[in-house]
């Protein structure tokens, strides 16, 4: 008993140290300064302070939840200990900064930062304040952990909602300002800078109570739905699908110009993500040069429809150019596929990476300038027309992206459960055995490259037309990295995963202006955290999760026993 509690305390200190390092890194990265002008709750807490607070809470919470013993007193002590350790590191930073010229090494280690960290209380009082704050917040984290699960969930959801409402103040107010009816609500919820105190409390209580009640009732509701006759259930399902489609169709109207632009970007990356998902997720071929197909789609449309390149235009219809963009991308995919047929893993990754760079350099080269515009790019690319409507603005392009995404999602779902999808799955697990089952590797691989490339070509075609121009620098390696990251975060091979990944990695950062600067830091951190805690992704595919579990078991943990995972086909008891 004694031994476990000591071990728990040590663990809490260790986790506190990790959290402290994260906090110091955040401070030295300049995030606190960047986030400080904005308030989450007006006059009460800034976004910078919230960032520190959330990290502190999360660290203490993790420390408490990892512990072995379940005594409330122990939990409180461990939480408080972790909290104090986190802030100890901040104190160390402040005192080091007071005596050493840290600023010479870290641009952001300025007196201004220390002032922000100590709330302007000066080093001595500030130290005391930080330590006490660590203690209290750590204990609060423990208290949250000790709440009954349903209450805890409600509290966490309510706190997250307040946080989001505060962070997204501009977006929420601008969006709601489209509707006069909401003006009084906005006035009530928001102060000049951040949420009003009354607004924050209202949201906290309303959301907390609502989510608690829902957690009580949801099981009953689900049971009632399960008891309905099948025809009614089907009707219900169709109704919910129709409602979702209606919402999707109305989104640009509700969200306005800026958010439509964000959604367009999500759609763009979703198209690419679904394409790369075919290659990497379904077929298990690691492609680091996926941007090439995006570029090829964009340039094909550009070259076919732009009058800029000093010759007669070939067509002025985007729709006519579109199939060519897709076909050229597919050809490029197959062309890339042929030389890499025998390659696996790392080698494949390196060759595809090279391919992506070659395409970018080719389209930017002086040599091909006459045909592809060189570094000046291609301008005046045609806009799509639907009947009499010309698609020009983000909200109009939204519908193009929506259509494209729905089509591509449909194709992905169909192909995943097809014969070809099974061949990919076998190939992903073991190429040699797949061959021994009579699967033709060459065709199967080329199909993956070709189909994946076609989605990339489609997204490139829409992208070119939306911007009206294409430049070589739009197609750098980072695009491939972003697309791959969103698949990994969402869950490889999982179609809902790609959607969630695109929303999280492309949508979220664009909602936060302050974030732009730290975007890649966020990507990197998200990837590392995901790989450590949830390598199967946010919305994993069932099979992939099992593969990873197997992998962990082979690593020497619990042997597969009576509760071995079982995959039943739908409809089996």
């Amino acid at each position, binding site marked *: 008993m004694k031994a476990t509690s000591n071990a728990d305390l040590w663990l809490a200190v260790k986790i506190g140290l990790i959290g402290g390092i994260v906090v110091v890194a955040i401070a030295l990265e300049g995030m606190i300064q960047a986030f400080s002008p904005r308030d989450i709750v007006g006059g009460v807490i800034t976004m910078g302070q919230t960032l520190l607070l959330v990290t502190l809470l999360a660290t203490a919470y993790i420390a408490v939840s990892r512990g072995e013993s379940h005594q409330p007193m122990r939990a409180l002590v461990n939480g408080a200990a972790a909290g104090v350790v986190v802030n100890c590191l901040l104190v160390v930073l402040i005192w080091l900064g007071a005596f050493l010229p840290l600023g010479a090494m870290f641009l952001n280690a300025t007196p201004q930062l220390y002032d922000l960290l100590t709330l302007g209380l000066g080093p001595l009082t500030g130290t005391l304040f930080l330590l006490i704050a660590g203690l209290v917040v750590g204990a609060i984290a423990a208290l949250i952990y000790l709440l009954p699960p349903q209450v805890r969930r409600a509290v966490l959801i309510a706190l997250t909602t307040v946080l989001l409402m505060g962070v997204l103040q501009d977006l929420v107010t601008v969006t709601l300002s489209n509707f006069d009816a909401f003006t009084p609500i906005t006035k009530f919820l928001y102060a000049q800078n951040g949420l009003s105190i009354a607004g924050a409390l209202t949201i906290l209580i309303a959301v907390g109570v609502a989510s608690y009640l829902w957690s009580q009732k949801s099981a009953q509701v689900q049971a009632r739905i399960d008891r309905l006759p099948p025809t009614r259930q089907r009707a219900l399902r169709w109704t919910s699908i129709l409602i979702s489609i209606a919402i999707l169709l109305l989104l640009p109207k509700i969200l306005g110009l800026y958010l439509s632009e964000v959604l367009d970007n999500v759609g763009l990356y979703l198209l690419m993500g679904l394409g790369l998902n075919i290659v990497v997720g379904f077929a298990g071929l690691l492609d680091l040069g996926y941007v090439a197909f995006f570029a090829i789609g964009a340039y094909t449309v550009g070259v076919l429809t732009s009058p800029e390149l000093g010759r007669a235009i070939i067509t002025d219809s985007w729709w006519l150019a579109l199939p060519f963009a897709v076909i050229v991308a597919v050809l490029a995919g197959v062309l890339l596929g042929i030389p890499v047929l025998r390659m696996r893993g790392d080698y494949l990754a390196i060759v595809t990476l090279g391919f992506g760079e070659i395409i970018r350099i080719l389209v930017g080269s002086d040599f091909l300038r006459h045909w592809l515009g060189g570094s000046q790019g291609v301008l005046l690319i045609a806009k799509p027309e639907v009947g009499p409507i010309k698609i020009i603005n983000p909200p109009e392009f939204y519908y193009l992206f929506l259509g494209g995404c729905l089509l591509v999602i449909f194709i992905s779902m169909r192909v995943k459960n097809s*014969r070809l999808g*099974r*061949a990919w*799955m*076998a190939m992903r*697990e*073991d190429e*040699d*055995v797949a*061959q*021994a*089952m*009579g*699967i*033709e*590797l*060459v065709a199967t691989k080329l199909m993956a490259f070709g189909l994946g490339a076609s989605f990339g070509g489609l997204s490139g075609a829409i992208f070119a037309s939306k911007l009206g121009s294409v430049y070589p620098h739009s197609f750098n390696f980072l695009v491939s990295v972003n697309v791959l990251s969103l698949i990994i975060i969402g869950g490889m091979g999982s179609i809902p995963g790609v959607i969630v990944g695109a929303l999280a990695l492309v949508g979220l950062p664009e909602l936060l202006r302050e974030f732009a600067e730290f975007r890649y830091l966020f990507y990197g951190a998200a990837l590392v955290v995901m790989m450590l805690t949830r390598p199967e992704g946010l919305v994993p595919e069932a*099979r*992939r999760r*099992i*593969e990873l579990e*197997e992998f962990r078991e082979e690593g020497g943990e619990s042997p*597969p026993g009576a509760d*071995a*995972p*079982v*995959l*039943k*086909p739908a409809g*089996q008891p």
Partner: protein
Amino acid sequence: MAMLQVNDIHSYYGHIHALKGISLTVDKGEIVTLIGANGAGKTTTLKTISGTMHPRHGAITLDGEHIEGLPPHAIVMRGIGQSPEGRKIFGALTVQENLEMGAYARTDKPAIARDLDFVFTLFPRLAERKFQLGGTLSGGEQQMLAMGRALMTHPRVLMLDEPSMGLAPVLVEAIFETIQKLNQEGTTILLIEQNAAKALQVAKRGYVIETGQIVLQDTAENLRKSELVRKAYLGEM
């Protein structure tokens, strides 16, 4: 005429000359075994027959038709099935899905269903575990699954690469019984084994391979009596 005929094949891994002129035949309805020590070239022979490796010299014919240049999937379709070394089953697929994967190249649904039933009667333990994931099966069950999956390709010649490897004696017994039973039902089998004693009990004829060459070939009965086999492979004094 022999059903499967391997004629003087030479296979290489880069510069390594792994098979230095292997010849063997398998007649319809036979169990033929290929025995040899670690690294003798047994698996390489199987890979060359199944098309994952191509021989630099020599010919392989199935019912008189040359198959040595064909890609693996074409060879599977012509009727050579295999259970690879080390029971490489699909870990994330269920037992049933693994078996269905074996029938990937086939389109005749009723025949596939019949073969599936056949595999499940042959291996009742697999039938009990239809929806369990391949990766969670025990070693013996995985071996059964690998054999079952090979049977699902509906082979005319079934090649088994060390089916008894790493199994407890009771299971070894059971696997060899199954092999015999399969053969009695009409399947032609090329059995690769290190367990020479067992292999020579079930086989009709056998070949002994050493460093890429056949050093001895005879009926199983004669091989059991031969000096070389007794000393080197049966561990007798």
